[in-house]
């Protein structure tokens, strides 16, 4: 019998499964944080979660609203200064995976969190780069998770805040001391991976009940599908229970604060 779950839950569970036990993960706030903590509470108890506020190996009971919530510090092995976090731990090569969200992503997995429109007269001003530009290049690899929509998945981002593979797909070629870059993008519809040669994102797995047309309609370029297109495994009862408990705990805590 198949379980009932939402497309958001499907996305979180699939993103969580991307993290392997024992990996060291530099976590972005929001969806990546939800997925990373779900991984830690299910199949990857030894995953090491690092947040840019300096909290090293943190095990929050509830999801933080901000990147510097006290919960992250109180449940961390230790907390270091922010320069140390970026210099020693990230730039020093101690991070396996950077887990990021974004406002806009293009076919070469470049990320835009700076603005929509023109830089001098933006239509919408977004928060900016934060930790992402260096997380994306100094981490061993990058996972990206966000909801699928035509506004978010565009052919060319308005501004490359954070490097995927550059505007021509060659942005990492011959650059020394740089990570592999985005290795998977997890949405509420599918999983994408970069083509090994062109680096253009290709759908490798469709979530249950999602059609190719659904993905085509929600993507702002002519999206390609892998020859061996897979079906993403459904969430397990255990994963759904733990995710729902985590979100309920978080909501209760934030309503009280």
């Amino acid at each position, binding site marked *: 019998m198949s379980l009932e779950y939402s497309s958001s839950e499907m996305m979180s569970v699939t993103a969580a499964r991307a993290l392997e036990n024992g990996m060291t993960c530099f976590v972005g706030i929001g969806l990546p944080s939800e997925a990373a903590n779900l991984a830690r509470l299910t199949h990857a108890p030894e995953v090491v979660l690092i947040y840019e506020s300096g909290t090293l190996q943190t095990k929050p009971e509830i999801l933080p609203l901000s990147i510097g919530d006290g919960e992250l510090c109180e449940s961390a092995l230790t907390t270091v200064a922010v320069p140390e976090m970026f210099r020693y731990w990230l730039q020093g090569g101690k991070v396996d995976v950077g887990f990021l969200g974004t406002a806009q992503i293009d076919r070469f997995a470049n990320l835009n969190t700076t603005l929509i429109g023109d830089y001098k007269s933006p239509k919408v001003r977004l*928060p900016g780069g934060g930790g992402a530009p260096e997380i994306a290049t100094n981490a061993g690899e990058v996972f990206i998770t966000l909801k699928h929509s035509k506004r978010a998945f565009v052919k060319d981002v308005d501004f490359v805040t954070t490097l995927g593979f550059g505007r021509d797909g060659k942005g990492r070629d011959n650059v020394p001391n740089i990570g592999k870059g985005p290795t998977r993008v997890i949405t509420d519809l599918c999983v994408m991976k970069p083509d090994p040669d062109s680096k253009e994102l290709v759908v490798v797995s469709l979530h249950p009940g999602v059609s190719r047309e659904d993905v085509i309609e929600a993507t702002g370029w002519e999206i390609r599908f892998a020859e061996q297109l897979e079906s993403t495994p459904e969430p397990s009862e255990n994963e759904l229970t733990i995710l729902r408990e985590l979100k309920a705990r978080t909501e209760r805590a934030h309503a009280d*604060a």
Partner: protein
Amino acid sequence: MAELLSLHDAVARYVEDGATVAMEGFTHLIPFAAGHEVIRQKKRDLTLIRMTPDIIYDQLIGAGCAQKVIFSWGGNPGVGSLHRLRDAVEKGWPHKVEILEHSHAAMACAFEAGAAGLPLAVFRGYIGSELPSVNDQIKFIECPFTGERLAAVPSVRPDVSIIHAQRADRQGNVLVEGIVGVQKEAVLAAKHSIVTVEEIVDDLNTHPNACVIPGWAISAIAVAEKGALPSYTHGYYDRSNRFYKEWDAIARDRDTFTQWLDENVFKAGGQA
């Protein structure tokens, strides 16, 4: 040697119109009481530096204190936009504000370089990012030993840095606990510094590797109880996530913002 001053007198003495000011605290220990005092004293044309402008700079920008903002992530954490920052950048209200944006790694390295007395910070950053095309303070240099191309940004050297901390002793030595951000770096990088504290104690009761800033490296200490609210002070009080959410509606509209500022900052004397 740090002098114990009232918050009013510390701000009056060290924050001049046109100054470059860094009010730091990475989500934690944000010096809101000091920010409100700067607003009350109607300081103008400030260059405001902060990794995350947060609500504190949203308030200062909306109050007309800022001429320029240097930052690396300008959102309301976990909520959305900083509407006063956006209104100033997009529509020039209350006046046009210049922005210079970096990444967190760049700002963190720039604070550290400022504390170290260096003119620049060098790091492996901005690879493939278009931020260097809109920020002329981002350059690339070649490592003289390996030839590797590395990013360089000028160090941060504020006229005055302002931070909040748990406590100081009677000699003005300050203990910072929890998420320590770039606060120590900000103080050491600046010409002058003001540290607001929850309380002054006889004994810091610290341990050998704690983050302690010696009193002789600080210009002024001012007591500001609950001085970090709506952010938090580890060990004293929690972050008001509720206020951060409420701020979205307050700041979205110029009139509600102005009314909020009047009631909670200008009319609140030194208590806000």
